[in-house]
C-alpha cells in the first residue's frame, strides 16, 4: 500500500474513532471523576453515621439492661425486697423486650430466682457457663456470645452482672429487631448487632438472629480492629458489600452496616463495562469501516497508478498481475483498432469500386442510349414518311431523356439521386433544341430543391419529355414564339411539377380517343408513379403533376424503371 493510501486510511480511522469513542470516553470520565466519588462519599458519610447511631442506640439499650440487672440484684440482696423479686423480674421482662429471661444466681452459680412464669429453675446449676464465670466481682459486667439458652430454648447473648454481694444477675439478650435508626439505612442495607464471634444477636432480618448467622469474615476484613468511619469493601459469597463497623462501647459487640456493592462497585463497574464495550465495539467498527472504505477507494487508484508506472517505467520484476492484465488489454485494443481500420479501408475501397462501377454503368447506359437515339435519328433521315419520321424523332427524344437521367446520375455525388430541377432544365433545353423552333422559345422556370432516385427520375423525365415535346410542336399560336413555364414546388411530402404553355390548347378527349402514344405514355407513367395528374388543355395548356416523395408500389404492367 502506498504512503498516501496509508495516510488516507489513518485519517479515515481517526475520524471514525473520534466520532465513536469520544462520547464513551467523555461519559467514562464524568462517571469516574464525578459520579463514583460522590456516591462513595455520600454512602460513606451516611453509612458511618448510621452505624455509629445504631451502636449508640444499642449501648443505650444495654445501659438500660444493665441498670435493670442491678435493680434486680438490689432486690435480691435486700431481705425486705426479696419477696418481691420475682414480681420485679416479671415486670422487667414485660417492659424490656430485649430480655427473654432474667436469672439471679447465687455465689455457687445455682439459680436462686427467675422471672419465667410457671417455670421453676430454682436450684439449677449454671456454674459452668460463662455467664456465671466471666463477670468480675464488684459490678463486673459480661457480654457473652450467642448460644441457645437452656432456659428459653432460643438463641440469645447473655449479659451478666456480678454484684458486690457476689450474686450474679443475668439476662438473655434476645433482641431481634434493631432500633428505628436502622430503618433509615435504606431497603437494601443490612444492619446487625453481632457478638464477639460475629454471630448475629439482632438484625432487621429476624431469622438471621434466630438461626445464628455468623459474620466473622466480615469483621475480620475490617481495616483495623477498632471501628472507624471509613467503609470497606467485602466480598460475601461472590457478592460485593460496602461495610461499616461501629463498636458498642464497653462491649465486644459491634454494629455492622452493609450495603450491597451495587452502589459502589457493581453499578460503576456495569457503567465502566458498558462504556468500555461500547468503546471497543466502536473501535472495531471504526477500524473495519475505515479499512473497508479505504480499501474500496485506494485499491483501484493504486492499481491504476501501478499500471501507469509499469507502462512508463517497465520493470518486469515489479509488474504485477494487474499490470500484465492491462498490457494484455492494451494489446487487444491495438489489434482490434488495426482490424477495424483495415476493414474500413476495405469498405472504402469497395465503395469506391462500387462508385466507379455505377458511374461506369450509368455512363455506358447513357452512351448506349445516345447511340440508340443517334441510330433513330439516322433512321429518321432515311425515312420517306413524315409520320415515320415524326415517330422516330419522338422515340429518339424519349431515349435522350432517358440518357440524360443516366448522365445526371453518373455526375451526381452518390450515383443514386439527382437534382430534379437541374435535370428538367437541361431536358427542356435539349428537347427544344431538337425541335429547332424558328423563334427562340421563352422559358420561365422555378425549381425547388427536389432530389429523386432513378425510379422516379425516369418516368418523370419521360413525361416531361412528352409534355415539352407537345408544347414545342403544338404550344404556339401562329406568329408567336413558344413560351414555356416550368415550376417545381415541394409541398408536404410531395412535389408538384407544373408545365404550361401559352398555346391554343387541344382536344384532350380526341387525343385519348385516337390513342395518341404521348398521351398513353403520360397516363401510364402517372399510374406507375402513383401520382396525380391534372391537365387543362382548354388553352393555354397546363399540366400539373403531383408526385408523392415516398416510394409507392408500381402499378402492374407499368414500365420498368
Amino acid at each position: 500500500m502506498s504512503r498516501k493510501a496509508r495516510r488516507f486510511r489513518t485519517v479515515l480511522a481517526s475520524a471514525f474513532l473520534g466520532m465513536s469513542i469520544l462520547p464513551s470516553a467523555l461519559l467514562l470520565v464524568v462517571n469516574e471523576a464525578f459520579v463514583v466519588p460522590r456516591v462513595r462519599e455520600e454512602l460513606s458519610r451516611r453509612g458511618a453515621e448510621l452505624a455509629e447511631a445504631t451502636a449508640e442506640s444499642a449501648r443505650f439499650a444495654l445501659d438500660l439492661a444493665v441498670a435493670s440487672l442491678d435493680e434486680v440484684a438490689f432486690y435480691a440482696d435486700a431481705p425486705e425486697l426479696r419477696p418481691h423479686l420475682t414480681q420485679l423480674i416479671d415486670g422487667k421482662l414485660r417492659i424490656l423486650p430485649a430480655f427473654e429471661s432474667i436469672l439471679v444466681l447465687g455465689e455457687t452459680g445455682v439459680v436462686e430466682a427467675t422471672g419465667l412464669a410457671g417455670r421453676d429453675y430454682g436450684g439449677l446449676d449454671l456454674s459452668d457457663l460463662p455467664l456465671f464465670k466471666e463477670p468480675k466481682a464488684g459490678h463486673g459486667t459480661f457480654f457473652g456470645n450467642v448460644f441457645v439458652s437452656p432456659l428459653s430454648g432460643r438463641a440469645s447473648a447473655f449479659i451478666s452482672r456480678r454484684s458486690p454481694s457476689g450474686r450474679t444477675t443475668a439476662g438473655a439478650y434476645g433482641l431481634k429487631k434493631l432500633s428505628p435508626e436502622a430503618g433509615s439505612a435504606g431497603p437494601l442495607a443490612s444492619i446487625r448487632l453481632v457478638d464477639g464471634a460475629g454471630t448475629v444477636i439482632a438484625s432487621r432480618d429476624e431469622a438471621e438472629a434466630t438461626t445464628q448467622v455468623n459474620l466473622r469474615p466480615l469483621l475480620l476484613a475490617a481495616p483495623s480492629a477498632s471501628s472507624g468511619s471509613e467503609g470497606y469493601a467485602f466480598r460475601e459469597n461472590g457478592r460485593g458489600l460496602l461495610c461499616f463497623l461501629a463498636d458498642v462501647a464497653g462491649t465486644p459487640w459491634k454494629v455492622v452496616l452493609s450495603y450491597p456493592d451495587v452502589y459502589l462497585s457493581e453499578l460503576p463497574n456495569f457503567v465502566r463495562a458498558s462504556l468500555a464495550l461500547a468503546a471497543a465495539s466502536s473501535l472495531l467498527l471504526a477500524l473495519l469501516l475505515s479499512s473497508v472504505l479505504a480499501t474500496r477507494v485506494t485499491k483501484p487508484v493504486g492499481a491504476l497508478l501501478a499500471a501507469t508506472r509499469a507502462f512508463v517505467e517497465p520493470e518486469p520484476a515489479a509488474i504485477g498481475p494487474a499490470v500484465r492484465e492491462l498490457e494484455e488489454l492494451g494489446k487487444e485494443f491495438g489489434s482490434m483498432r488495426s482490424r477495424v481500420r483495415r476493414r474500413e479501408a476495405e469498405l472504402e475501397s469497395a465503395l469506391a469500386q462500387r462508385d466507379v462501377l455505377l458511374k461506369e454503368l450509368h455512363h455506358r447506359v447513357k452512351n448506349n442510349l445516345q447511340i440508340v437515339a443517334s441510330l433513330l435519328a439516322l433512321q429518321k433521315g432515311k425515312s420517306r414518311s413524315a409520320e415515320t419520321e415524326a415517330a422516330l424523332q419522338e422515340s429518339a427524344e424519349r431515349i435522350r431523356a432517358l440518357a440524360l437521367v443516366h448522365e445526371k446520375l453518373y455526375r451526381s455525388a452518390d450515383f443514386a439521386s439527382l437534382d430534379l430541377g437541374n435535370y428538367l432544365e437541361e431536358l427542356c433545353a435539349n428537347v427544344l433544341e431538337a425541335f429547332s423552333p424558328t423563334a427562340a422559345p421563352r422559358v420561365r422556370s422555378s425549381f425547388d430543391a427536389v432530389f429523386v432516385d432513378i425510379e422516379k427520375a425516369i418516368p418523370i423525365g419521360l413525361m416531361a419529355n412528352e409534355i415539352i415535346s407537345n408544347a414545342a410542336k403544338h404550344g404556339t399560336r401562329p406568329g408567336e414564339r413558344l413560351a414555356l413555364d416550368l415550376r417545381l414546388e415541394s409541398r408536404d411530402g410531395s412535389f408538384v411539377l407544373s408545365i404550361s404553355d401559352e398555346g391554343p390548347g387541344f382536344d384532350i378527349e380526341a387525343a385519348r380517343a385516337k390513342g395518341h402514344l404521348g398521351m398513353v405514355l403520360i397516363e401510364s407513367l402517372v399510374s406507375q408513379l402513383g401520382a396525380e395528374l391534372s391537365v387543362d388543355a382548354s388553352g393555354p395548356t397546363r399540366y400539373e403533376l403531383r408526385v408523392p416523395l415516398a416510394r409507392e408500389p408500381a402499378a402492374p404492367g407499368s414500365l420498368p424503371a
Partner: protein
Amino acid sequence: MKAGPARATLRALLPVSLAAALASCGRSPVPLGLVGVLSGRQSELAIAGRNGVELRIEEANAKGGLRGRRVELLVEDDEGTEAGFREAAARIAARKARIVIGPFLSSEGEFAAASAEPLLFLSPTVSAARFSGRDDKLLRIMASNAAAAKAIGGFLGGKAAGKGALVVRDETNAAYADDYGKLFAGAFEAAGGGAVRSLSVPGFGQASYLDTARKIAEAAPEALLVIAGGPDAAMLFRQLNRLGFRGLRAVSGWTMTSDFLAQGVEAAEGVYFSHQYDLGDSSPRYAAFKSAYLARFGREPSFSAVYGYEAADLALDLLAAKPGAGSEELKAAALAWGPRRGLQDEWSFDRYGDASRPARVFRLAAGRAERQ
C-alpha cells in the same frame, strides 16, 4: 483477496469482544438448598451443619464457583415441623434447586424421604437405623447410628457387669432416640450388662433439668446413656454432678456437639460416647478444615459441621458432573460415585444411599476425646 494483518487481527478480535460482551451480561447462580431446624433448642446440629456447608461453598465461590457460576445457598428453617419442612422444600424447589442438604435431625428424615418435590436430599446427620436399606430420595452422609449404639452398648455392658442401665431419651428426636436406645439396650445386655430401663423426656423445653436429674439420681443406674441434644445433655450432667451422681455416663452420637463440650466443661468430664467422627483427629486434611472453620466461625467444628462440609462437597461434585440433571439422575450419579475422601476417612454409599463409616468408642478427659 489476501487478508492483511490488520484485517486478520480484526477478525480474531471480533469473537473475543462478543464473548466478553456476553460474559459481562452476568450468569445466574447455581442454587443449592439447605433445610433443617435452624432455630430453637434443637438448632445446634443444623447450625453447625449449615456452617460446614457455608464454608465449602465459600471455598468453591472463591475459586470461581461451578463453571464460572456462583453457588447460592438457599437456607430454610423448617422449625422441626412437617408442614414447615414441606413449605421449605417447596420454596427451595421453586428456586430451581435440585439438591438439598438436610435435614439434620432423624425425626425429619421421614419428611425428606416422603417429599413430593423433585429434590435429592443429602443429609449430613440423619443416622437413625430405621432409614437403612430404604430406596428413597434421602441419602445419608453420616453412617447409621446402629454401629455406634451397639458399640457403646457393648462397651458399657462389659463395664457394668450385670448391673442395670438407664437410657434417657429426648423424644423431640424420637426416630433417632428410639432406634439408638433399642440397639444400645440389646448390645448392653448382650455384653453382660443388666436390665436397661428407659426414661423418656418430651423435650427439655417442657421438662425440668433438675427434675430429670433427680429421677436419674433416684434410679441410680450403674450406667447412664443420655440421648439428647448437646446443650440439654450438658445442662443435665451439670445437675447430676450437683446431685452427686457417680455412675458410668454416656451420650449418644447426636449429643456430641461442640456446644456440649463448650457448655458441659467439667460436667462432661469422663463421659463415654461412640462415634464415627474422631474429635481428636490430627490428620492434615482435618486439621486444615478445623483451622479454616475456627477462623471462619470462631468456634470448634462439630461432627455436623464435618458432614455438612462433606455433603456440600458431594453436592458440588454432582452439580458439576451433571449440570442439567434432575434429582433422580443426580441420585443415580451419587450412588455410582464410588469411594470419597472425607475430612477424616474414606467413605462411600451403599446401594440405598447410606454411608458406611466405622464407629469407635471414646471417653472425654480434660476436654479431649480418648479412644477406648
